């Protein structure tokens, strides 16, 4: 049995320790906001926070998360009012939307490290893939979120 905490709730899970966190979150816990995109930690659609840090959950086995605290898109904010979510809403960022949970989780963690990011900081640190190409609005929304967080 592996014990992990997801969105503040503790779960005791009878799963293989090598099951990737992504599949625990999606199939075992039924939290489907976190998406499967590539399975090789490249696209970032599965990004969640583990102890506050952005992690690609398809590349982290659940055994390594035992005793740690996981936050998924469902747990980022109780009312979808996290500054990054507000900024995403204001900029109307998503298109198909499939990668956006991961984009938002990556941006939220990034802004903790880079509260006043430049475009170059954003481009260098955020590598999540969006095939709809919402990148221009993602950049705008990150700047907007940074401003919201300061106030």
């Amino acid at each position, binding site marked *: 049995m592996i014990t992990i905490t997801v969105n503040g709730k503790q779960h005791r899970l009878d799963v293989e320790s090598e099951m990737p966190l992504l599949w625990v979150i999606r199939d075992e816990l039924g939290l489907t906001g976190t998406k499967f995109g*590539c399975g090789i930690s490249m696209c970032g659609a599965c990004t969640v926070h583990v102890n506050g840090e952005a992690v690609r959950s398809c590349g982290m086995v659940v055994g390594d998360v035992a005793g740690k605290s996981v936050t998924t898109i469902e747990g980022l904010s109780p*009312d979808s009012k996290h500054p990054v979510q507000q900024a995403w809403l204001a900029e109307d960022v998503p298109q198909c939307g*499939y990668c956006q949970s991961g984009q938002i989780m990556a941006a939220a963690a990034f802004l903790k490290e880079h509260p006043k990011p430049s475009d170059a900081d954003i481009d260098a640190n955020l590598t999540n893939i969006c095939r709809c190409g919402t990148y221009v609005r993602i950049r705008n929304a990150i700047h907007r979120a940074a401003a919201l967080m300061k106030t």
Partner: protein
Amino acid sequence: MNQIVKTFVSRRQFVVASATAAGGLAISVAFPGLADAASIGSQAWGPDNAPNEVNAFLAIGPDGGILIRSPHQEMGQGAITALPMIVAEELECDWSKVKVEYASPARNLREKNVYGPMTTVGSRGVRTSWQMLLQAGASARVRLIQAAAQRWNVPAAECEAADSKVLHKASGRSLDYGALAADAGKIKLDKEPAIRTPDQFKFIGKRVARLDTPLKINGTAQFAIDTRLPGMVYAAINACPVPGGKLASVDEAPAKGRRGVQHVVKLDNAVAVVADSFWRAKEALALLKPEWDTGAAGKTDSAQFAKMYRDTLDGPMVGARNDGNVDAEFAKGGKIVEATYEAPHLAHATMEPLNATVNLQTDKLDVWLGSQTPMGSIRQAAAASGLKPEQIEIHNCFLGGGFGRRSINDEMRQAILVAKQVGKPVKLVWTREEDVTQDRYRPQAAVRMKTALGPNGMPTAFDAKIAVGSILRSTGINKVENGVEAQAVEGFANIPYAIPSLRVGCMLKNTHVPVMFWRSVGSSQNAFFVESYVDELAHTAGQDGYKFRRALLAGKSDFLGVLDKIAEKSDWGKPLGQGRGRGIAIHECYGSIIGQVAEVTVSKKGEVRVDRVVAAVDCGHVVNPGIVEAQIQSGVIYGLSAALYGEITIKDGRVEQTNFDSYQVVTLADTPKIEVYFALSGGKKWGGIGEPGTAATAPAVANAVFAATGVRARSLPLKNVKLVGPA
């Protein structure tokens, strides 16, 4: 809350609850409401009828809640926001009371295409539905007015509609739509009202927030892959890596007995493992070593295909256009410019890998899917299951990207075949590797163009020979072996340039690699060919690329409007530094004209960085400028991935690329500044917007690379083009 709205809600709950009992979605419809905005539920599909329908597109509850059904699907392009805006334009309703659902494919089948073809392809959403949707809104408004007039016993002409109310100014009375909807639904009009003309639009053209954004910032939007049914099992599948090949044999032993594994299922061309979790199924599948019967196709590669397409250019062509007398002009001599261009296969690589969930019973099949063509999905599901089309329900979800790929549902067919063998609801998911290697690809192509330039440097004759895969033959839409396919000559047959003698021919050659519609289809490669080559002509003639095109487009005010706009906004002609350059391209497709100027920097090592793209579009009319802007940005990025990195190559008959590590796509680090401008010609033009943005990017970037380096890229992607000479 009054009764019919309760019914509205309870019907929705009924549908969700009953679906759950049968193994349906168990979802919460919780999303942050925006006080002034319309909404859509997490689940895009809804029940196929409702009380108080004014027509098939519209139902109004007694509290004034308005249900608008969208005949097209949402895959990022904004359809479920833009299309209801068109209904609302005529309906004169309170936008905040609007709730949107997908129109039902089953009802469309039952009621003889009441929603039209429902295909979300060819940038058709607005451009093929706007009249139908304006009519639906106008018809409802007029009947609401008549219902009020009857109730007040006054002439309808004395009443008017605004903000979800009918008003009788003379007496100061007013009634909410909700109070009138039941009566309005019974009114038969002698003739349908005339629809508004664009100068009368009040709501169309506003930058209204997308309805689906609230669901896509908190993970609640339901994609097909998020479907969870009670008793559901998961399937991972591995189809023959050589398209068209068959499964010869597979030793099931390595998968058997593993935790959670229930079945190894053999299909004619694939093997699947069914387990109690997707990960367990996928891990067990990876242990199998299936033997494939690949036939001769297993010995082919991309170099052979490239040679075949190039060689085809030396043979006969089927004519697609023939103006003037090309041969006579060439015989006159003068400056002749000839060039051969090539383009590779490309994968769609939607962010949501293909997947389908099916619940197959003896007399009913429910499918949860992301489909661009739900009516086609019904036909495909009927063929795979053996059931009748009327027994099939497609629960279409939000699509995690489409770009053409989700118009044939290979994943659904497989899920049905697996479900037949396991007798349980099945969710079948393609890994990214399966998604990249089992795509139906943008065709490979080679094109040879030849032009005679007159004494003033302007072309007098232009001849194009096109060798490309037939999409219609590959997809089974057309069986014709020889002929002209609109997709193959798109961008050539409709070249807008005034060239007195102009001939276009094509020869369709297919390989075992399946080909299909890929965002902007034929224009995705043909715009690159034509616009790069026109740039060559301008350069050969010693003319500026913008002015050369301008002269060839004389008198075409819509093209010139776009061209002048991008030249002006991009500072065309203003010098750039060493290693930098601007490139221009203009192209018409899907009823719209797109122009782009790209600004690039090429490093000493030959690395291309696109700094800025200035785009202008003439789509005639704009329903929602925020969505159009986003679609052009989106198209530019999609086109940029193809221009810089995109190629699918074949070795031993199989696709070599497998995932985003080998099929590289653009990320934030590659994203230029993108400016989008409108150059709208209005009038009768209602152009599409999902695809045009993609077509113009590769030529604009390649022309900018030429301006920066003097190297002309006659093939893509640019990563394969040597941009600096040997040291």
